[in-house]
């Protein structure tokens, strides 16, 4: 029962790496970013942006090497036969390539984005109706990226990752099962103690960048 879990402690701020410092300092000074101050995004973000913006096949190969073996284990765990698992891995990775234009690092992480593609794909295989998904928000890729938002998003995720790592193994197991779709319901609730509030606020900021698209949605 997750509602017996103690709430997680507030994670400590891991601090900024030097490259991030220079970016933030640059932004605070009101200077534009120059080449030397390319922000230090994490590897997955860099690969994903290279795929999205440059259709970079070697970056895609790196994404494949990282995610494909994990995806295979992940979908087998959540009830797919080993035979079908590679078919799903293939579909998911091809979707990553084909739909890369929808990836928005201001509000998402590569792994989160791929997770959602994989769950959709798996569920579609079990259902006669396609899994209903929210309307996609159109990204305007000509908009200037906001490195400080992207880095802040990565930091929030880093803190959540640390918090998860501090959970007792059985608690982490329950959360894993929940997000794999192994549990049917009762344990997934706000009572997991997962500190999602700050991440949600950060994602909201990312969504507000798209406000021009969100207008008229109400």
């Amino acid at each position, binding site marked *: 029962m997750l509602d017996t879990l103690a709430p997680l402690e507030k994670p400590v701020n891991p601090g900024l790496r030097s490259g991030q410092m220079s970016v933030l300092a640059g932004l605070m000074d009101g200077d534009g970013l120059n080449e030397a101050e390319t922000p230090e995004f994490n590897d997955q973000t860099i690969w994903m942006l290279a795929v999205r913006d440059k259709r970079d*096949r070697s970056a*895609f*190969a790196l994404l*494949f*090497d990282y*995610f*494909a*073996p*994990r*995806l*295979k*284990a*992940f979908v087998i*765990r959540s009830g797919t036969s080993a035979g079908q698992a*590679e078919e799903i*891995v*293939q579909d998911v990775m*091809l979707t990553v*390539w*084909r739909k890369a234009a929808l990836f928005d690092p201001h*509000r998402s*992480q*590569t*792994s*989160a*984005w*791929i*997770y959602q593609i*994989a*769950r959709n794909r*798996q*569920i579609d295989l079990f259902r006669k109706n396609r*899994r*209903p*998904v*929210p*309307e996609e928000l159109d990204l305007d890729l000509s908009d200037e990226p906001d490195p400080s938002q992207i880095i802040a998003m990565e930091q929030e*995720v880093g803190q*959540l*990752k640390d918090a*998860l790592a501090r959970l007792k193994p059985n608690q982490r197991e329950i959360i894993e099962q*929940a*997000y794999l779709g192994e*549990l*049917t*319901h*009762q344990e*997934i*609730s*706000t*009572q997991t103690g997962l500190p*999602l509030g700050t*991440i*949600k606020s950060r*994602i*909201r900021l990312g*969504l507000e960048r798209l406000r021009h698209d*969100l207008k008229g*949605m*109400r």
Partner: protein
Amino acid sequence: MTAITHHVPDALLANYAAGNLPYAFSLVVAAHISLCTECRAQLEAHHVVGGLMLENASKEDLSADLKNNVLAQLDDAVAPQEHYRRSGIYPGPVMEALKGKPPRWKSLGLGVRQSILSADHDSSLRLLYIPAGTAVPDHSHNGLELTLVLQGSFSDDTGRFGVGDLEVADQHLEHTPTADPGDACICLAATDSPLRFRSIVPRLLQPLFRI
């Protein structure tokens, strides 16, 4: 337009993210998120957790040719997936359920109309059209019922529900929703059928209502 004030409870959202909801319920949740930045952010937060689980997953060996097969397909032409956009008051997921066509309304009397979008063993989904000032007819939901307002508004003992608002009701809620004056109220409503009542409802309600 007033802001959305009734959102998807987080337990329901977490189950949507994990893929645990019957079709009709997940369609209502997807339609609400299409209208609601707040719930979209919360859903994407759940995806972050799912993504971290993926990063932490063990690794399974791949067939030797899988990577090359995938790389070889990057340039393949793919038939574009049918993609339904919002049309008028109907968000994309509702247009998908309507297969892009306008609703086929059937009269229920007193000016009330319905259009059934799906009905299967574990859930049913329909659009309801309720003229201003009219009460929703006895719609006897045995289990969980989700109602999303798409046009106009309705009120019941628990409050007022305008465009984008989601009402979550269980069989214990005695309510008589009545369409407010103004535009006719059009809602998207999902219920679970009696067949699945025993299995799905207690699970869905436990975290929501602390049974």
